[in-house]
């Protein structure tokens, strides 16, 4: 294959895409939708994962005090807590402070007004453990204290989140395979049409002694272009959607951790374009092998 031949081959691929019209649009859109869904799903998974990890790393134990605890008991309770091995620090959070914190986490809603002027929150101690390993033992010991009503730490939440990401991964893989198949089939149909439309030219090329590579390359390129265009479109859409969804989440439920776009854009770019490229190659190789045996 001569380099100068690409002057024929590349425009030929574009001409054929244009000639195929609606089929080209359908193929590109299928690739776009498939890759958009796959990438969006993957972004969702890594974000849930990041949240689970953050909770896992949290060394806080919250000890909610029973309602009949009086203010003069607080100092003694604090001392008892600080005496437990592995406790790094202990901070008292009164119910008024507690509700303000909560209001801030939900994006500045007036909770007290919503709840009819009543604050249902109990007073609590916020305990920091020295390491995550100490968290369970500390929680156990704190819950044995008479004044402590309920103890909360990341128990169960982490496991639930990891189970969720696990399920999402499995469903994700199945969905990805189905979508990829659909995309490959559509590319294959488009390339097949392109081959049919140029049957006569292919025959002439054969008769005059064009090489297999020269005959097939425009079609392979057409498939690759379809894949890359679809991938590029999916990339733009998914990044736009990510930024918007991230902003929305940050303004409504601020305690949810949303990974910054700077942390995900490169992987997203590589994934969408590489997947588009592969889909394009596979999609065009099938019809070329089947319909163009020279």
């Amino acid at each position, binding site marked *: 294959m001569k380099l100068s031949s690409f002057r024929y081959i590349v425009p030929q691929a574009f001409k054929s895409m244009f000639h195929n019209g609606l089929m080209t649009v359908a193929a590109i859109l299928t690739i776009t939708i498939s890759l958009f869904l796959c990438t969006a799903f993957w972004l969702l998974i890594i974000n849930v994962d990041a949240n689970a990890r953050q909770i896992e790393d949290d060394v806080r134990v919250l000890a909610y005090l029973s309602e009949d605890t009086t203010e003069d008991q607080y100092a003694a309770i604090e001392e008892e807590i600080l005496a437990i091995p592995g406790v790094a620090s202990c901070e008292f959070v009164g119910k008024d402070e507690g509700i303000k914190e909560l209001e801030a986490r939900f994006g500045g809603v007036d909770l007290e007004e919503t709840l009819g002027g009543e604050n249902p929150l109990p007073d609590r101690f916020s305990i920091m453990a020295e390491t995550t390993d100490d968290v369970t033992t500390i929680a156990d010991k704190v819950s044995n204290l008479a004044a402590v009503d309920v103890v909360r730490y990341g128990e169960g939440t982490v496991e639930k989140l990891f189970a969720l990401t696990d399920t999402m991964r499995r469903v994700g893989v199945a969905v990805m395979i189905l979508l990829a198949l659909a995309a490959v089939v559509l590319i294959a149909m488009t390339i097949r049409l392109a081959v049919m439309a140029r049957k006569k030219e292919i025959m002439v*090329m054969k008769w005059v*002694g064009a090489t297999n590579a020269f005959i097939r390359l425009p079609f392979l390129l057409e498939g690759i272009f379809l894949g890359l265009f679809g991938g590029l479109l999916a990339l733009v859409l998914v990044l736009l959607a990510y930024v918007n969804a991230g902003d929305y989440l940050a303004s409504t439920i601020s305690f949810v951790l949303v990974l910054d776009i700077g942390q995900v854009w490169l992987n997203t770019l590589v994934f969408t374009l590489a997947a588009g490229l592969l889909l394009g190659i596979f999609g065009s190789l099938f019809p070329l092998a089947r319909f163009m045996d020279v």
Partner: protein
Amino acid sequence: MLIQTVSLGKKYKNGIVALYDIDLSIDYGEFVFLTGESGAGKSTLIRLLFREELPSSGQILISGRSTMRLSKKDIVRLRRNTGVVFQDFRLMERSTVFDNVAFALKAVERPWDEIKKRVPRVLERVGLAGREQENVMHLSGGEQQRVAIARAIINNPIILFADEPTGDLDPRTSMELMELFNEINEQGTTLVMATHDKNIVDTYNKRVLTLSAGRLISDSVGGWQL
């Protein structure tokens, strides 16, 4: 010997036998008519000779080499040394005369500078000088066949196969085209032409191979044999 067939046979998948035991040889520079009624096997033989189809039995040797055991590279080389012309021209309808002919050079990856020089030269040879930019669909049948011939000979093939090239043309245009084929042959290209036009065969004093029901029934010089 340029072309040689040994017990060449073709049986199609549907059971129809198109050719039985064809033994023939054609030398460099010959002009050979392949005649016979419709369905006698002329087109099948041509298709086998330019390797559009493979025989079911026997051998075809081109310059002493069997065409059945060629590598992809050798198939490409063989095709660059053979030209083909059909009854229905098989041109790219939406393209110009220039593009149709240039396509044969582009396909074998000749540089653009060379293409620009060679296309007008071959068009002059087939009598279409200055017609480069015309759309092929605006040409007469005879002119369209000239474009097809230009496309077939632009790579200077050693052999030119023509399958009923005048089949769709009136007698006068046919004769004009025959003059062109004769010239191409006189310039050294071996010509194998399938035709059932008795008038043409009788006019030219060439070697005539006659097929009937898939068998070669005569090999003589000059005149219609059936």
